[in-house]
Structures are given as C-alpha cells and as structure tokens.
C-alpha cells in the first residue's frame, strides 16, 4: 500500500520535472555578436509594460501603454527631437506660416509608403485629420478621438493644394499648434487600411513608421517588426515584443530571470539594487509631469492667499520626495516641469517652515487652527503613491494646527468627483497630477491655471484665477514670437507661485531598467519608447 501511494506522488513529481525540463526557461534576446563599436543589426527586444495597451490606433491613444507599444508604427507631419520637445521635420519636409499665424502650409515628403504598400500623400493627411474632427466624415465612427479637440480643435479647415502640399487654416493664431502636429494624435494613418478594417483598425494599425505591426494576442503580447523601407533609415533591431506584466514585482522578476529585456515602473525600494547590478542599465529622464495639491479657491479658507501660502510652508515636500518617492521624482517649485522651455527656478520657493505657516494662519485669523477635508485617489495615472503622500501631508498639516480628514476614492470615481463645474461640491484640498502632451508651457500654465479653464472648459480644478495672469497667458498662446512667449511664461510662473494656487510637490522621473546589452536607448519626455536607433550588443 505504501509503495502505491509513493508511486502516485512520484509520477506527479516526475511529470512536473519533465514539463519544466523540456524547454528552455526563457527566450533570451538573440543578437549577432558586435563587430567593432558601431550599431549591430538584428535581435529582438522584449518589453514589459504595466498593462495591456487599449488601442494601437495612435489617433485614439490616451494611455502610456498604448503609446509605448504603438507610437513607433506611425509618423506625424512633425517629430519631437530626441530627448526634447522641439519639433523637426518628419512626414512634412518643410512648412510655411502666414504672417497672421493662421495658415500653415505643409510640404510633404515624397516617395513614402504605408506598411500596406499604399502611397503617403496629401489625401492621407486630409483623411487622417478629418476622420477625427468632422462628425460627418464617413470614417469618423471608426474610433473615439479623445485628443482630437486638444490637437486639432483650433483647425478651421484642411485643404489639399496638390498631392504633396496641404494647407491648414486655424480659427485663430495659436502658437502651440506646431508642437501639436508632432503628437500621437496627429499621426497619419493609412486611409486604405481604415476603410478596410473600420473599427478594428485599432487592432490592425497601418502607418508609415519605423516599425510594422505583426500581431496582437490579447493579454499576451504585441509584436512589431522593423520596416526595412523606412524613409528615415531602417531600425537596427528586427523585432520588438511588448508584454503586459501587471504586477510590479513580477515584472522585475521577469527582468532578473532574463525573459524580459526592458521594464518600466520599478518599485522605488528595488531601484537602488537594480542600479548596482551590472547586468542592467538604468535610463532616467525628468518627465513632463507635475504632482500637486489643489486648493479650492471658491471655498473658505482657501479664498485667502495667506492660508494657501501657509499650507505651502507647512508641508515638508523634500521629505516626501526623499522618503516616500525615494528620489523617483524631483522637488517641484514651479507648476512647470524643468524639462519644458521657459521653466524658471526664480520663483517664490516655499521651504519647509512650520513657524512661518503658523504665523500666516494667525494673520489670516486661524490662530486656533482649522479643519478640512482632503481628497486622495487610491491610485491613478501619474499619481505616484497618492495615499502615503496624502498621509505625509496630513501629518505635516496637523503640526500647524490644520486637522485634515482624508477621503479616498478609486480613480474613475475620483476623476468624476473632481472635474466639476460647481466648486462647492469639492473639498477644501485634493490631489492631482498632470502629464504634458505637446511640450508647450501653454499645456500646463493655461490649461491648469487660467481663469478661462474652469471645468467644464478645462482643467483648472481648484477654480482659482488671477486676472493679470489670465491676460498674459492668453497673449502668449496667440503669439508666434518664441522669446516674447518665454518672457511671459517666466513672469507668469513668478506670479502664480506667489498666488499659491497649488502646493506643487514633485516632477516624476521616468525610469526604465534594461539589459546592459541594449545600446543607444533614449527616453523621451512624452513617455514614448523610441527603438529605431537602438541596437543590441551580445
């Protein structure tokens, strides 16, 4: 009897061993040996994403996972330079702007083909934009274009002048327009493919980009391969595979086990260890991101600038960056991230000073302290570690006599409750963060802090305004004079920090960790992963 039982067990154990021994444990990156120091051709990169991309139609993308996996399939008329948000020619070789700043004429690159073999031309450009903004366009219902208003809302009409010239007329002069033309939402899609696949174009993307779509197994992987005929020169690697690995720890295990070559969202506690490991390379880039606490200026006590300043002094922001974020972010003083042009550090800086905070509260008539409600999301895009950060802020406020009650909400609910027209439904303070889209300061200062942008028009969630700043920001977005715009934005940052509409806390650093053999990878401020010039060393 004993022997029989052991037979059962040993068969099972054997079965397990056979299964585990029958195939290689992982699929390591294969790349030919390097010859000399230059780029090597070939190889595959396996990328571990945080979650499954939602769509591969670049015009419909709203999340990092989608842009990271799919943006390389497409080109736009313009292109952000590496590591910068300055624009350079892409599908448009050059462009002219009329003196009134309303007419943009784009001269298109000739001889470019979509991955399905059809020609890129002016018709494709007109199709790509009208598909998004014209509700009567026959292919408008092939997608939801969340960014259409943002990117192309200012467009009055789009005309084909000849096969390789397109003229776009704006409703008004709008300086950030050129930067918009390099965004994922302004990419050019193959009209033939959209007509063929309809709504399923988002699963069968066809563009002109450096990588061609191969396959998408839902929940498993997305595969793209190099476009050997790319107008800007073919990529070095043969293939990139994107795998959704939801759990941070599991993603890191995959990297260390060698089955994934490249990961994002490394838990702050493990970062130092990975950095010290010579098998891996870490690439960091200060992102276009600001994490902040919003004051509700329509409610007491934060209609008073002194109370807003007091809270700014009361919070030890450096401690949050050091001990909670573990330096995965940099201390924020201005609403604008340092990576954007016109950023200035010459603003009112609120160093941690509880005494000053108490003094300001006393001056404002709150010598006995006050109590308030503080909304915090449990997680959310760009929110980093909202709950621990909220608790740290709560503890700091307690020290100056402010009794903050935290209420937490799930992200979907949180957005619903914070983007509201009636500021009276909001609590006194709440958390928010913003990730820039087009690298233009207007995308932070005007959208988040102008009096024109109270919801539902925009994203000034605290309903705070300074009329002088509003006039300046309006002037800056209409002007095409870059140095004048820079002056205005520098001045606006000084005034806005004096107004203290927010407590800016940090700018998140983008961090990826990859196998040491991956060479020439540069992070882009938009969060896109650019693999065109990357090569693999073996």
């Amino acid at each position, binding site marked *: 009897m004993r022997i029989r039982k052991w037979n059962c067990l040993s068969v099972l154990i054997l079965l397990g061993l056979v299964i585990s021994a029958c195939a290689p444990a992982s699929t390591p990156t294969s790349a030919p040996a390097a010859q000399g120091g230059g780029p090597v051709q070939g190889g595959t990169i396996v990328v571990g994403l945080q979650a*499954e991309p939602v*769509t591969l139609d670049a015009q419909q993308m709203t999340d990092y996972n989608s842009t990271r996996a799919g943006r390389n399939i497409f080109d736009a008329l313009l292109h952000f330079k590496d590591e910068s948000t300055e624009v350079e020619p892409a599908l448009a070789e050059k462009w002219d702007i009329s003196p009134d700043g309303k007419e943009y004429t784009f001269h298109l690159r000739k001889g470019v083909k979509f991955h399905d073999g059809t020609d890129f031309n002016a018709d494709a450009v007109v199709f790509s934009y009208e598909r998004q903004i014209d509700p009567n366009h026959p292919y408008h219902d092939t997608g*939801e*274009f969340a960014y259409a208003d943002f990117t192309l809302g200012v467009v009055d009409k789009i005309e084909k002048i000849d096969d390789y010239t397109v003229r776009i007329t704006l409703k008004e002069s709008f300086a950030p327009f050129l930067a918009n033309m390099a965004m994922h939402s302004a990419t050019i899609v193959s009209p033939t493919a959209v007509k063929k696949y309809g709504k399923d174009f988002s699963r069968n993307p066809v563009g002109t980009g450096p990588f061609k779509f191969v396959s998408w197994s839902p929940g498993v992987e997305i595969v793209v391969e190099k476009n050997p005929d790319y107008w800007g020169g073919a990529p070095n690697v043969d293939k990139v*595979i994107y795998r959704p690995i939801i759990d941070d720890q599991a993603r890191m*295990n995959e990297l260390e*086990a060698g089955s994934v070559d490249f990961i994002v969202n490394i838990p702050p506690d493990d970062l130092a260890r990975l950095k010290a490991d010579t098998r891996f390379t870490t690439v960091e880039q200060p992102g276009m991101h600001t994490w902040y606490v919003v004051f509700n200026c329509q409610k007491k006590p934060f209609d008073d600038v002194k109370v807003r300043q007091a809270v700014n002094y009361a919070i030890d922001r450096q401690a949050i960056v050091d001990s909670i974020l573990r330096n995965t972010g940099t201390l924020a003083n201005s609403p604008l991230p340092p990576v954007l042009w016109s950023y200035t550090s010459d603003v009112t800086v609120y160093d941690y000073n509880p005494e000053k905070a108490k003094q300001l509260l006393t001056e404002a008539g709150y010598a006995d302290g006050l109590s308030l409600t503080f909304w915090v999301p449990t997680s959310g895009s760009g929110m980093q570690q909202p709950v621990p950060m909220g608790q740290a802020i709560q503890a700091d406020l307690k020290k100056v006599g402010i009794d903050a009650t935290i209420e937490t909400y799930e992200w979907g609910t949180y*957005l619903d409750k914070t983007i509201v027209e009636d500021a009276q439904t909001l609590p006194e303070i709440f958390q928010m963060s913003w990730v820039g889209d087009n690298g233009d300061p207007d995308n932070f200062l005007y959208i988040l802090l102008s009096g024109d942008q109270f919801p539902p028009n925009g994203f000034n969630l605290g309903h705070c305004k300074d009329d002088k700043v509003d006039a300046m920001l309006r002037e800056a977005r209409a002007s095409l004079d870059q140095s004048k715009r820079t002056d205005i934005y520098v001045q606006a940052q000084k005034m806005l920090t004096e107004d203290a509409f927010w407590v800016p806390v940090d700018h998140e650093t983008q961090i990826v960790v990859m196998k040491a053999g991956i060479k020439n990878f540069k992070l882009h401020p938009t969060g896109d992963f650019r693999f065109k010039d990357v090569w693999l060393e073996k």
Partner: protein
Amino acid sequence: MAGYIIRRLLALIPVLLGISFLVFLILHLAPGDPALIILGPKATQASLAQLRHDLGLDQPFLVQYFRWLWHVLQGDWGRSIQLKREVLPLILQRFQATAYLTLFSAFLAIVFGVLVGIISATRQYSLWDRLSMIGVLLGFSMPVFWLGIILQIVFSLYLGILPVSGMQSPDQQGWLDLLRHLVLPSIALATGAAVIIARMTRSSLLEVLQQDFIRTARAKGQSERLVIYRHALSNALIPVVTVVGLQVGYLLGGDILVEIVFSWPGIGLLMMNGIMARDFPLVQGAILLVATSYVMVNLVVDILYAYVDPRISYK
C-alpha cells in the same frame, strides 16, 4: 435523471436574470462615468456628451438594462467600451485561459488534497498526520499573491526551470510551453483549495472509519487496503465532492490575484480592468459567463453524487 437535469438547467434562467440585473444595478450605482474614463480629463463636454449618447448611457437605467438584455438574447453581447471589441469572442477567449488555469489547479488540488487527507486519516496522530496538518495550516494561511511571488523567485529566478509569468513564451507555442507556464500559477491557486480538500477528506474518512460496517469489513478479514479504498473512501468522498464543487467555483472566480501576479490573460483580469473602466458590457458579459459556469459545475457535482453514492438518485 434527464428530467432532473432539464429542471436544473431551467432554474438557471432566473438565476442568471437576477445576477445580470444585480450586476447592472451595482455598476450603475457606482460613481464614475465611462465616457470620462475613456476620453480622459482632457476631453470637451461636447465629445463626452456625444460618447455618452453613442454608448446609450444617456438613457434611463431600466431602458439600458432591457436594451442590453434584448441584445444578449439575440446573441449580441455588445462591444467593450474600453477595448473596442466584440464582448463575446473577447470573453470566450479569456475564459479559455481561465479554464486552463482552473482545470489544472483543480486537478492538482484534488490529487494532493485527497492524497494528504488519506495519509493523515489512516495514520491519525502519526508524524505524517502532524506534518501534513501543519502543511495544511501553512497553505491555508499563505496569501495567494505572496505565495505566487515566492514561487517565481524560487523556481524562476534561483532555479531557472520555469517561466516567471505569462501564458506563452514569445515565438513559442504549443502544449508543452503552455504546461510550463501553467505550473507556478496553478500551484499558487491550488494550494488554498487543496488544503480544504485535505482537511475534508481527513475528517470525513476518520468518521467513516469509526462506523460499524468498517468493523464488519475488517472482521471479515478483508485487507486494510480494500477496507479503505473500497468501503471507507467511497463513503467518505461524498462531502469531499461537495467541497470540490464549491472550490472549483472559487477557483473560477477567485483566480484574479493569481492572474495579476502571473499576468495570466484570463477573465478575472479582464473583469477587474473592466470594472475600473466602468466597461458595463464587458463586465456584464464576463460575470454572466462566470456565473453560468459556476452553476454548471455545481450541477455536475450534484449529478456526480448519484454515481458516488448509490443511495442518492434523482427523479
């Protein structure tokens, strides 16, 4: 028997109607606007309103529910709001992945659970019994996500013999690759169920072994092996079958943490993302499918009773 099965299947209809209505109600009561979640904070009011209209979300609750039900009855399960795909093929494909995981875990749980239970019961208070009961206690106390991570670290990082996560390796397909990926998540998932089955088998077998007919069987001079496997076990298995049925149901719905830790492309993960995105058609469809399979598993268990225990028959 046939009449019984038909009656049980008919009883499924009100159950599913009730479930679908409850889920619809809960999803709609939860704050959060699908249009806002899809288009993001940067969308204009006009485009939000347009999308709400396109999705039918501007209709009264009951209109939305009955419209959805009417379409489902005609075989149209709708389109996922977030993933922009037909719901039915999507959930069927994900359900397949969950089914692999559930079946393999159930297999492991039953084999190990019953084996450990028999060893413990037949050697009550022996070292084996104590060891396996300590194992049961440990297995029961370990959170599944923690166990999953530990398994990854031991078997993938240190030993390097099994893949860390996912359902298939890039550029590889086939059953062997799938099996290799199944091992760790299945162990993580099966542990909880296995320990419950082990305890159930042990106590049930101990109880049966005290009964008169076992004494009679022994008195007849039958070998201990025959006594346990023919007489005792077949009687002791009835409560075990019940627990197995419930546990398979638990595995079906409760594998979400395992799916997260192991990036297993199953229906639990799909449902969780669907709930976060307020993807009503997707969540509705997925829950309906899981509920149906749960009821079906329990139906099979009820039918199994009749085979395990001749005293039970259905008319």
